[in-house]
Every structure is written in structure tokens, then in C-alpha cells.
């Protein structure tokens, strides 16, 4: 497998330096850490938002650092949760005294490491609150659902709320509202290759796809013979819509997310069917985003996220953001 890398051991370090080199006016790296923060952090008078997790999901999460979204992002090794000391550094660097909201994706590693960081913060009298994103309906038990592309809506909307001057509790509440109304499901067409081992992260035959796969190649719902874009769109929507609890007047936001190796051309072919099915079913779409937002290295495939909106969420979704990966 050919990869555009140097030493696999240095991949995170070199990526972070590369991100800073690309946006020197917007982000900076905390020395000797894997933490990137807003250049102007801590932002006076504002609740800070931090997210993070294993690397390999770029532009998540560093690409969402900016005015109106995240204040900091913590990167672990590829697909491995970052350690508590790193998260704690991010908390310290972004807290302006108003407190810090930790946006955590629901994986046991992430939850435990962020928890420990919150305990470290508490011991230094820094206020934190957390929300746990669990939007992946491929997992039956709602408590065990994984955090996937829906996390970007949390960053955007809670970030806008914080930018507007809301308190830590209010930002947390809005973030939770987004989580409660967001559902995602994905599909993989081909696996990603782990940089350290050079091996595929999971097995998938040439003529197979996997429905409901996670962003680290975790088991999905089932393997199927390859299907067309329209068939996949139909399958995902049929599973998502019953989970959405939509009234006739409700409007939704749609995110079609590429997993890393699927061309935007194909994402748009897929989106075409999603939109026509939604129109057929009378579901009103307020906003659509198509692109690569929460990837899985060079896995091919996509995920579909639906978010049920109310007036508050609409306004915050439309609010300005300077984050390179989600400019508004």
C-alpha cells in the first residue's frame, strides 16, 4: 500500500505541524502535546469547547477549530483515544474562567480518558461539563451507540451557542439537544489501511459492502453483496427515518459524509437519491452538507446523518463559523 507519509511513528506529529503551517493565523499547537487550540485561546468571557479522539478521522477534529466552533482539539494515535494529560492541557489552555464543554464520542476509551481529564481539571478548580455523542443507529442499544459524523453538528451548534455568550450549562443543554435529535448510519465499500502495520483494519471482500460499519471498521449490521448508490441510500434512509420521530411540520438538516476514499462525485450521486426519497416522503430539508467531515483514513463509503431542527438549532446552524472544515 502506497501512503503519502514518512515515518509511520511520526505521522501524528507531522500532521499536526502541517495543520498549523496551513493556518498559522488561526491555530497553534501547545508545545510538546498533540493539542491544537484557537490562536486566540482562551477567548475571554466565552465557554470553551473541546473535542478529540483517535486520529485518522480528519478533518475531525482539528479542522473544526475556529470562531463559532471548537476552541481546541486533542489527537490520539491513529484510532486510539488520547490520554488524560493531553486532554487536560487542552482544558487548561482554553478555559477563560467560564468553563469548558468536552464533546466526547461514545467509545469506552474516549469516555474514560476524558473523564480522567475532567477529574484533573476539577482538582485545579476548572469547571467542565461533558456531552457524549451517540448517533450511530447501527448499534441497537441507544446507550452503547457510537459517536460518528453527527458529532460535527454538535460542534457547530454548541460552538455557535458558546460564541453567543451562553453559560456552560446552556451550551451543554443545547449540545445535548443536538445529540438527542441526531441519527447516523454508514456503509463501507472497502477497508482502510492502518499506517503502522500497513494492513487493512478489517476484511471486506471485493464484491461486498458492510452496512452500519463504524468509523474504525467496527462491526456493522451485515455484509451484503455490492449495491448501487440508490439502493444504499434507500436502505440507510429506511433505517434512519423511523428513528427520527418526525412530525409533518419538522425540518431536518442532512449530512452526507464521505469516509475518506469516496469521491465527491459519488457522494453527490448518493445525495441525489437521498433528497428525492425525502421529498417523496414529504420530509422538509432545511440544510444539506455534502463532503468529507468524519473520515476513516482511506476507507471507501459514506454515512448519512439526519438532524431534526427547531428554531434555536436552525439559527445556530446558520451562525458564522471560521473553522476551515466547516466555514459558514
Amino acid at each position, binding site marked *: 500500500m502506497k501512503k503519502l507519509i514518512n515515518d509511520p511513528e511520526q505521522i501524528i506529529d507531522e500532521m499536526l505541524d502541517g495543520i498549523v503551517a496551513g493556518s498559522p493565523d488561526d491555530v497553534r499547537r501547545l508545545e510538546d502535546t498533540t493539542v491544537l487550540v484557537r490562536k486566540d485561546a482562551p477567548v475571554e468571557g466565552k465557554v470553551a469547547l473541546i473535542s478529540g479522539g483517535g486520529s485518522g478521522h480528519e478533518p475531525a477534529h482539528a479542522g473544526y477549530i475556529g470562531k463559532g466552533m471548537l476552541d481546541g482539539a486533542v489527537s490520539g*494515535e491513529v*484510532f486510539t483515544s488520547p*490520554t488524560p494529560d493531553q486532554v487536560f492541557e487542552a482544558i487548561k489552555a482554553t478555559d477563560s474562567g467560564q468553563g469548558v464543554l468536552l464533546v466526547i464520542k461514545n467509545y*469506552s*476509551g474516549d469516555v474514560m480518558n476524558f473523564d480522567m481529564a475532567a477529574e484533573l481539571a476539577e482538582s485545579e478548580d476548572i469547571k467542565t461539563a461533558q456531552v457524549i455523542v451517540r448517533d450511530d443507529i447501527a448499534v441497537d442499544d441507544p446507550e*452503547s451507540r457510537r459517536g460518528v459524523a453527527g458529532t460535527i453538528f454538535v460542534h457547530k451548534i454548541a460552538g455557535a451557542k458558546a460564541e453567543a455568550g451562553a453559560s456552560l450549562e446552556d451550551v451543554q443543554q443545547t449540545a445535548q439537544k443536538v445529540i438527542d435529535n441526531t441519527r447516523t448510519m454508514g456503509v463501507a465499500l472497502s477497508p482502510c489501511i492502518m499506517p503502522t502495520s500497513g*494492513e487493512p*483494519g478489517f476484511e471486506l471482500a471485493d464484491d461486498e459492502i458492510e452496512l452500519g460499519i*463504524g468509523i*474504525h471498521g467496527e462491526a456493522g449490521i451485515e455484509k451484503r453483496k455490492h449495491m448501487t448508490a440508490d439502493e444504499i441510500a434507500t436502505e440507510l434512509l429506511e433505517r434512519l427515518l423511523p428513528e427520527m420521530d418526525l412530525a409533518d411540520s419538522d425540518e431536518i438538516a442532512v449530512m452526507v459524509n464521505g469516509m475518506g476514499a469516496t469521491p465527491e462525485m459519488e457522494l453527490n450521486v448518493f445525495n441525489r437519491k437521498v433528497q428525492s426519497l425525502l421529498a417523496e416522503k414529504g420530509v422538509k430539508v432545511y440544510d444539506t452538507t455534502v463532503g468529507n467531515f468524519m473520515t476513516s483514513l482511506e476507507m471507501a463509503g459514506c454515512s448519512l446523518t439526519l438532524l431534526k431542527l427547531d428554531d434555536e438549532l436552525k439559527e445556530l446552524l446558520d451562525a458564522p463559523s471560521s473553522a476551515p472544515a466547516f466555514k459558514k
Partner: protein
Amino acid sequence: MLIGVEETIQWLKNYNDKLSEQKDYLSQLDRAIGDGDHGINMARGFQQVADSLDDDFDDVSTVLKKTATTVMSKVGGASGPLYGTAFLKMSMACKGKEVDAGVFAEMVEAALGGIKQRGKSEEGEKTMVDVWSPVLDMLREGEFDAERLKKTAEDAMQNTEDMTATKGRASYFKERSQGNLDPGAVSSYYLFAELADVIGKGA
């Protein structure tokens, strides 16, 4: 006395050797029912542990405390906080004490409590808990026996094969997680096996 500073350091260094030797095997186990990083995480972290143990230490508790902080900041994933907590609790349980068989049982009890609390996990969920828990039961039975420690941990590790995972990444595989050993249970077995070897040789 069961172990002193020297034996503890030897134990951890041997454990590091074992992990670096079995790194690919552990990751392969994790690839089957997780995300394939357990061996890499553990080997990376314990290499740092081994490198940090050349200083002078006053007692076993300080060695274990140093290990805990290194593990917490260098392993990552789910196993970092879990092993980090386990070593921290062991360190606290032997603070100011000589480590004899009774104290060692208390250390394992504290560690197991810490793992369960941090992971919100119980026995039978196909995790490292399923090795630590039977080991504690055995240690409570009285007389310490290195060979039995090793055998108990090994059997417990083997028993995870037929369990269904309900915690961690393996839980997404549900019934399909059966027929695979839990990687964290295997790395915990190595930990007790290396300790048994150090104690067995010392005696």
C-alpha cells in the same frame, strides 16, 4: 515478603519484553473483535515504563505509582486508563507496607475495584476484569503459590473465548465476539504470568 523493589522492577521489565514480543499477536486478537491497536498501545506504553524504572525507588508503592502515571499518559485507548488505574490502586494499597501474600491480595482487590469502576464493568463481560477477578478469588484462598497464580490467570484468560462481549469495542460484534479471546484478558494474563515467574525464580 513476596516482592521487593527489585523484583517489582524486574517484573515490569519482563512484562515489557513480553508485550513487545507479543505485540502483533495482541493486535491481531484486537483486530478480530476490536480495532487492532491493543498490542501497539500496550507495547508503546510499557516500553516507556521500562525506561522509567532505572531510577532509585524507596519502596514497591513508588515503583507502581511511577508505572501508573506513565501508563496513563502513554498507553491511550481503553487500556491506558484501565491499567493506569489498576497500578495506581495497587500502589495505594501497599503504601508504607511490605508486600507479602496478604498485602498482594489487597492490592489486586483494589486494582480490580478500580478497573470495574473506571470501566463501569462487571465480571462476565469479556474484558480484563475476567482475569483479575478469578485471580483475586484465588489469592484470597490463602497460601500464595506462583504456579497456581499463573494457571488461574491462564484458565481465566482462556474462558473469555466463549464469552459474549458487552463492553468496549468488542461489544459491537455481540454474539460474533464469541470464539475469540479478549485482548485485554490476554495482556492481563501476561502480567500475572510474568509476576509468577519472577516470584517463582526468586524463591
